[in-house]
């Protein structure tokens, strides 16, 4: 009657280092069930010639993968209803450009990866800094009231410019608060332990500067631990994710493997810690069959799946900056114009 837990799960399907896996296979341990019958770590060590420590490790892995078979096949899943509630409860990070926010469905969403692509100078870095500031908007104004990790790979993060943007945001928020206070909500003015001031905003951005792709991969690996320490972080910006991967990579297959691995880490990071991950990507020219060419996001076709939402920043025919939604699982494709001002990103003045 009793079906052994995960009897058929094979040893090859366990995340074991190759030498352990090969040893297990060579000594005839094909499935997790075989491992369970080996008689504990000592028995397994005796039969395979692994050290008791290694055998213990193997069995722990197998135990975690096997575990008690639950008779409920829904185990380990989240119902879509819970996700819907959770998504509605998490505030979005606005860009302060009204049309761009509308395009993004109210701002950059937490728990997913959003990618912005564009030619140099179109405003990727400005947008990244703006988001790093705006993620700190206090909860009393239905902001996320979090902090930001900013990973600078190109050396383009300018603290002075970021201070300008922060100052603009602080002034804006202050004016809204005062307006609300005059309308009978004075308690908003004396907000919590971390008031939205220039100094606090600048303190709330953790900057990492990485110089090559090894550092970048290492940092992505380390981010989960960083986020456990700094649980306030609600946004991770990588500006740009591309830079170090466009050079020093003679083997394209190797690059594809490395970047998809990184993408997978970022996706799971976004989901487990419920942070927004914003990636800046460069563009590259793709020659079409007909002989023409068009600008496409860099890093190739398989990277296109890394971000669930993808926005292309371009210069429009009207010499304004435009954001085009080119991929999204739930938002319609569209186009929005925005401007970069001294105070940061703003929407264009309404035309009359």
């Amino acid at each position, binding site marked *: *009657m009793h*079906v052994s*837990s*995960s*009897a*058929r*799960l*094979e040893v*090859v*399907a366990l*995340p074991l280092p*190759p030498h352990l*896996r090969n040893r297990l296979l060579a000594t005839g341990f094909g499935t997790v069930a075989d491992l369970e019958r080996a008689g504990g770590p000592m028995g397994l060590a005796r039969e395979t010639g692994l050290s008791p420590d290694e055998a213990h490790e193997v069995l722990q892995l197998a135990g975690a*993968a096997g*575990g008690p*078979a*639950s*008779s*409920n*096949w*829904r185990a*380990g*899943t*989240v*119902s*879509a*209803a*819970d*996700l*819907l509630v959770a*998504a509605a409860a998490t505030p979005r990070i606005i860009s302060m450009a009204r049309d761009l926010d509308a395009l993004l469905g109210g701002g950059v969403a937490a*728990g*997913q*990866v959003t990618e912005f692509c564009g030619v140099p100078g179109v405003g990727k870095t400005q947008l990244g800094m703006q988001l790093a500031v705006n993620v700190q908007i206090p909860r009393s104004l239905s902001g996320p009231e979090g902090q930001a990790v900013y990973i600078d790979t190109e050396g383009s993060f300018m603290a002075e410019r970021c201070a300008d943007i922060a100052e603009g945001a602080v002034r804006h928020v202050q004016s809204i608060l005062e307006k609300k206070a005059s309308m009978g909500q004075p308690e908003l003015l004396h907000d919590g332990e971390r008031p939205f001031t220039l100094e606090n905003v600048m303190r709330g951005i953790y900057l990492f500067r990485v110089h090559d792709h090894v550092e970048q991969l290492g940092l992505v690996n380390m981010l989960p631990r960083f986020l456990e320490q700094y649980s306030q972080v609600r946004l991770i910006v990588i500006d740009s994710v591309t830079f170090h991967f466009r050079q020093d990579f003679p083997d394209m*297959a*190797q690059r594809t*493997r490395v970047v*998809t*691995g990184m*993408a*997978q*880490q970022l*996706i*799971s990071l*976004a*989901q487990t810690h419920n942070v927004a991950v914003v990636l800046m990507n460069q563009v590259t020219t793709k020659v079409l*069959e007909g002989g023409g060419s068009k600008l496409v996001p860099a890093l190739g*076709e*398989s990277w*296109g*799946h*890394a971000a*669930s939402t*993808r926005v292309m920043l371009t210069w429009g025919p009207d010499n304004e900056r435009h954001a085009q939604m*080119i*991929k999204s*699982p*739930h938002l*319609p*494709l569209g186009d929005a114009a925005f401007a970069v001002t001294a105070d940061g990103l703003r929407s264009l003045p309404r035309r009359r």
Partner: protein
Amino acid sequence: MVVEVAGETASGKTQLCLLAAAAAALQGHEVMFVDTTGSFKPDRVVQLAEGLVTGGSGSAAAGAAGRHDPAELAQHLGGCIHVHRAANVFELLTFLDRLDVSLQVQQLQQAAADGGAGGMDWAPAGPRLLGPRLLVVDSVSALLSTLLGNAQHTQGTTLLTAAGRTLKQLAAHHSIAVLVTNHVTSARGGPAGEGERSATAAAGVGGLKPALGEQWRPQAHMRVQLSIDDSQPGARLATLTASPVLACGHQSSFYIHSSGLT
């Protein structure tokens, strides 16, 4: 039956998956959605389902007649769709294996509860089928393509076939429809002479072929390749590239709207 949807970025793979989930949930079936890229959006599923109901097209609407209240609809859908997030292929395999085992346990319990013939009665017209009727893995290639390559070639291929086999087993044992998505790579192709053999199947559509290589190709029973139709704005083109029953090469174009796909 394992159906694969391959296609480039933003060609509508996820939309197709979400629509399938919405349609199945509307009919009251349970859906297991394995999300590996963080693209499962419950609000979009509800939106698509509303489109199905109000559009009145297909059999789905008939089953959900009278369920017009959006909140109630969302509640119903949310209860039917179960989402699992897998961050790597090991998690995926472990999860699928557990799903298989727990479904078997449940079936045995059901059989025992029914008494009589007990576990020997495997007639297909047996008790009500348990578990999900639809299993979606979006996307399978996001997990597997990290493993393929020269250095870890043998293990990558082993895991690839293990994943394919597990999916097929699930489909066959528990009569689940399995829908997986794959991305595409440019079919750079070998020497020109090689192009002659199985031209349409291998070369794919528009110079792009499904990723994951030759080893993965026979794993899916049926394959649909999506591409963006450049001739009309917003149009997507679906091409049937492999099927045991239907003629391949059939094309149809569709558009993605806020309320569904047409």
